[in-house]
């Protein structure tokens, strides 16, 4: 991690740059949503933004190994948690029915 004043100022510039990119991405999402309300594009841009925040702002681009270990373990189960939805979908009560239309 940078600790001399020059490097800190360089970091500061980097953070501002990332900030502007994030703002631009937000505008892009809204614009895209106006044209086509695509779930994939919307979530794709959101993932890129989230990645920037996590990697740059939260310094995950250069972190100690033990934190990565904890996070990998967590993310694995968080994704598992999403599959929980699919499991719950097996509920026969709410099984898809053919709509009249």
């Amino acid at each position, binding site marked *: 991690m940078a600790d001399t*004043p020059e490097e800190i100022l360089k970091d500061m510039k980097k953070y501002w740059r990332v900030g502007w990119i994030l703002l631009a991405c937000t505008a892009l999402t809204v614009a895209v949503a106006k044209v086509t309300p695509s779930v994939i594009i919307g979530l794709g841009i959101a993932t890129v*933004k989230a990645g920037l925040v996590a990697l740059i*702002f939260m310094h995950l681009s250069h972190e*100690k190994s033990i934190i990565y270990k904890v996070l990998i373990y*967590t993310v694995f*189960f968080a994704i598992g948690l999403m599959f929980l*939805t699919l499991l719950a979908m097996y509920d026969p009560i709410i099984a898809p029915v053919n709509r009249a*239309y």
Partner: protein
Amino acid sequence: MEIPFEVKPRPDTGLWNAKVGIWLFLASEVMLFGGLFSGYLFLRLGSAGEADYFWPQGVLSVPFGFVNTLILILSSVFVVVAWLQLKLRNFEKFRFWMILVVFCAGIFLVNKGFEYSAKFKHYGIKLSDNSIVEGHGIDDTIRYEGIKKVNVDVGRFEGEFLESVHGDTPKFREVMSVDADGKSVLGDSIELSENAVKKIEERRNNSLREKHLASNEEAKAKDSDFNAIRWLPAMGVKQLSFVADKEFSIEIKRKKLRKSFPDSVKFRDQTSLKGTISKLTPGLYLQAVDRIDLRATDSEDPETSSLVWKYLGKESLLKGHSDQGSSDANHGDDKDHAAIGYNEDEQKVKDDSHPHDPKKEAAMAKKIFLGARENVLQEAKENKKEADFGKTLNHSVLKWKDDKEGEVLKSHAPILVPWEDVKLYSNFTPKWNTYYAIYFTLTGLHGLHVLLGALVLLYFAVFGRKLFDKDPEHMTNRVEVGGLFWHFVDLVWIFLFPILYLM
């Protein structure tokens, strides 16, 4: 005693304690929001399988959400800048940026407050044929007339119904017992209240208890082995009936009741009254309908036979009634009773150029709905595609530009839905549908995180000086940890914005 590695990192892990701690905490937060997102996914995918439920899309104001996203991203930048200023050992600049962060959080929350309150004022009604109308200015006053008999649940009675009695509160006489012919033996005339019921309960229980003890004695006299059963509350009185000395009527908002039937009504404290619904309050009244949704309706051709068209344009009788001042003098100037939910501001918003004629407004609303539907179908035909189901049967009917005639149509039609045709009504809160349920849960929990995070950051900005002077590195570490939390809150919002506002 000092805890090691509070400030300096531990050589082999390369981390100081709080950094390990905050990442572990964030890991659990990932699981927390992960669980909620999984709930969102479930409800959204699940809604596709429901014949009568459609996931609302585009119901939130995008500009609001957009501005909030920008604010939160900016605040995230400010946090790192503040942290870097601390690394440069510049406390004053740190304080400046940090207070800016808290300010951003404040704006975010205020915005959120506006968004919430707009939802609280917006109503929807689901009719018995599953068609939906939405709008402003609800009046769910219901009046029951000709009430004489009151049944009270002794354990739960809170005197709720007494507050809604229309006119003078009558006196009540307790039903002491019912004789062989089915005629009631009545007690003295009293003022009914929680205390009065308690007193009667006590008196009755005392006599029951004496009876019980006496029968115990008697049994013992006969059989010395008899095991006496002590007096237990379950042996006491549970229900009491009262008869009013004159017929009376009650007036109350429907949503405050537990259950209402054509011939009886039940309060939340389990008090039930027998009476009939007044002709003045035949149904649920919505002052200005702004959207009609017939996607889930049961009727064969919703364009003509939906119940919405039957009831659109009917005015509340009670409203007219009160306006004329012919109702009870006691309630004439009591706005809450005169026309509950009658919103003067809403009235002012109305376009003055349109004379307020409910019938005409209703016809206009129907014209808008069908016209817009015709357009969608036409367009689909031209493009040789199937018409968008969501757009053909679900529109705003507030305002529409007729492309053919170039005319701008506006409507403010009221609707009066008879009670028996109301399936569900609510403002846009979790009760209305699962979209709002998950919306409020997700954003509410996120808002709570914003609030707590902002408070912690504010504490750093205001009271950080002392620690900074003592050990600037410790202070820097603290701010880094606070910042990590703040970025996480931002990160959650980055996902919330598209899934709630855009998609």
